[in-house]
């Protein structure tokens, strides 16, 4: 599903954000990407969604050679790879339903699809009672659920979560991770960058640890061992 080969990212000042990354992630895997701030997690994610291009190496995601995506086809690629963020990034002037529906509308999906898929997805994330409220009236955990609903309503092949629990308390965080695990069980490959030690230890999923731009650990059922090199 995802394959990175000898990927390096060097910035103009000569600093390596990523160095010789080789990583293979199978379909329907759940992978934690851990490491301190500045280790390269965000850079890796930015390469996966082609916000940036690597200096060297190849990246394949869901059958696409990410480096060769033309500007014209980029948006089609991004419809297969969904993202959620620490700061949710919801549209504040649209209701929960409209926020989720937007993901389908940008993909030109029919009204029938929208009317069917949006309530289904809201039920999946447990937000049916909040369908017509505005995001800013919701708690952080609920807002992140809206973001997750928006990310998965199109049934993407890959879901990339960039510190999705960074702003949430431990109980809510655990609920979000449980939700991501359920989505993973439904068939979506999930990559989650995180600092959250408790959560990683509890989930017992594959852990990839980055230190100064290099992969130093890749364990199938790993734990969060902060600072180990």
């Amino acid at each position, binding site marked *: 599903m995802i394959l990175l080969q000898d990927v390096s990212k060097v910035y103009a000042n000569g600093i390596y954000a990523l160095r010789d990354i080789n990583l293979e992630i199978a379909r329907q895997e759940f992978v934690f990407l851990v490491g301190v701030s500045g280790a390269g997690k965000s850079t890796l994610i930015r390469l996966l*969604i082609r916000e940036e291009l690597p200096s060297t190496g190849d990246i394949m995601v869901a059958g696409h050679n990410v480096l060769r995506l033309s500007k014209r086809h980029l*948006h*089609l*690629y*991004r*419809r*297969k790879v*969904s*993202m959620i963020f620490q700061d949710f*990034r*919801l*549209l504040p002037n649209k209701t929960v339903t409209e926020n989720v529906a*937007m*993901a389908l509308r*940008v*993909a030109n999906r*029919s*009204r029938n699809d929208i009317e069917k898929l949006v309530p289904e997805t809201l039920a999946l994330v447990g937000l049916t009672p909040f369908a017509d409220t505005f995001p800013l009236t919701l708690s952080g955990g609920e807002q992140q659920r809206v973001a997750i609903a*928006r990310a998965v309503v199109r049934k993407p092949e890959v879901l990339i979560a960039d510190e999705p629990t960074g702003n949430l308390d431990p109980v809510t965080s655990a609920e979000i991770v449980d939700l991501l695990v359920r989505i993973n069980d439904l068939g979506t490959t999930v990559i989650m960058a995180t600092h959250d030690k408790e959560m990683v230890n509890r989930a017992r999923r594959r852990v990839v640890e980055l230190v100064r731009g290099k992969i130093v650990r890749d364990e199938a059922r790993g734990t969060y061992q902060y600072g180990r090199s």
Partner: protein
Amino acid sequence: MAALSYTATLFTSAVVNAWRHRTMSVITVLIVSLMMTTLGMFLVIENELSLMVASVGKRVNLIIYLEDDAPPTDVLALREELLADSRVNTVEYITKEEALERLRTYLEDDPDLLQPLLDNPLQASLEVRSDDPDYLLTQVDYLAAKRIVEDVDLPQDLVENLLQVIQIVRFLGFALGGGLGLVALFVIGSAIRLTVYARRGEIEVLRLMGASDHFIRLPFLLEGIFFGLVGALVSFVLVGASYIWVHELLQQTLSFFPVSLDATYILRLFLTLTLFGIAIGSLGSYLSVRRFLTI
């Protein structure tokens, strides 16, 4: 139907955007209106003057006074030559006697004035009618040079002056309209840039969700078109009102001016201004979006 409601949704969101920074929107609309009103005024003035020229032109006869000894065949040949040009409507031959008869009719009330005349002093002439005063003007020298022609008369000054005024009006209209058009483009662009800036978070989210360029840019283009449309409507009201006003004023002061108020012209004015508004609105926002909305 779905496409229609989708466009309606987008247009609504464009109007909502415009409302969010309404001060800038009002300024934009005002400047667009000012530009379009100026342009519209010049269009109206130019139209009125052209009508006036055409109307004066219809009355203007180019009169070719013929030498007394001009051979009839040459006169006929000249008449044929003049008629050969499609811009010439009629060429009437007025004999010496007819000319005197006309004068008699004209001086009906004072027949004594003609008493002292022993001989008919008037000349035979050709009276040329054309709707194109410009053309008549160019023929004066050519005709005057002919052997059988003694003199050529054309109420030249009025026509010439009107034509000159039209030229000046056209030039001023283009220059001012063009200059203000650039200002309007710039102002629309700035307003759109403001919206782009205010919505950069949303743009980013849409982009990462896989929205196409087209999907992201359309609302901004529609906002520009909205500005252009509102500006066009405002200027149409102003220009239309002054068109009617100027028209009545002209008819009062220049009673010989027979042109009646033209409803189709008002419609044409409406269409011209609306299309121009849409054009300048979409161009302004397109340029701005292309520059400030990187996708």
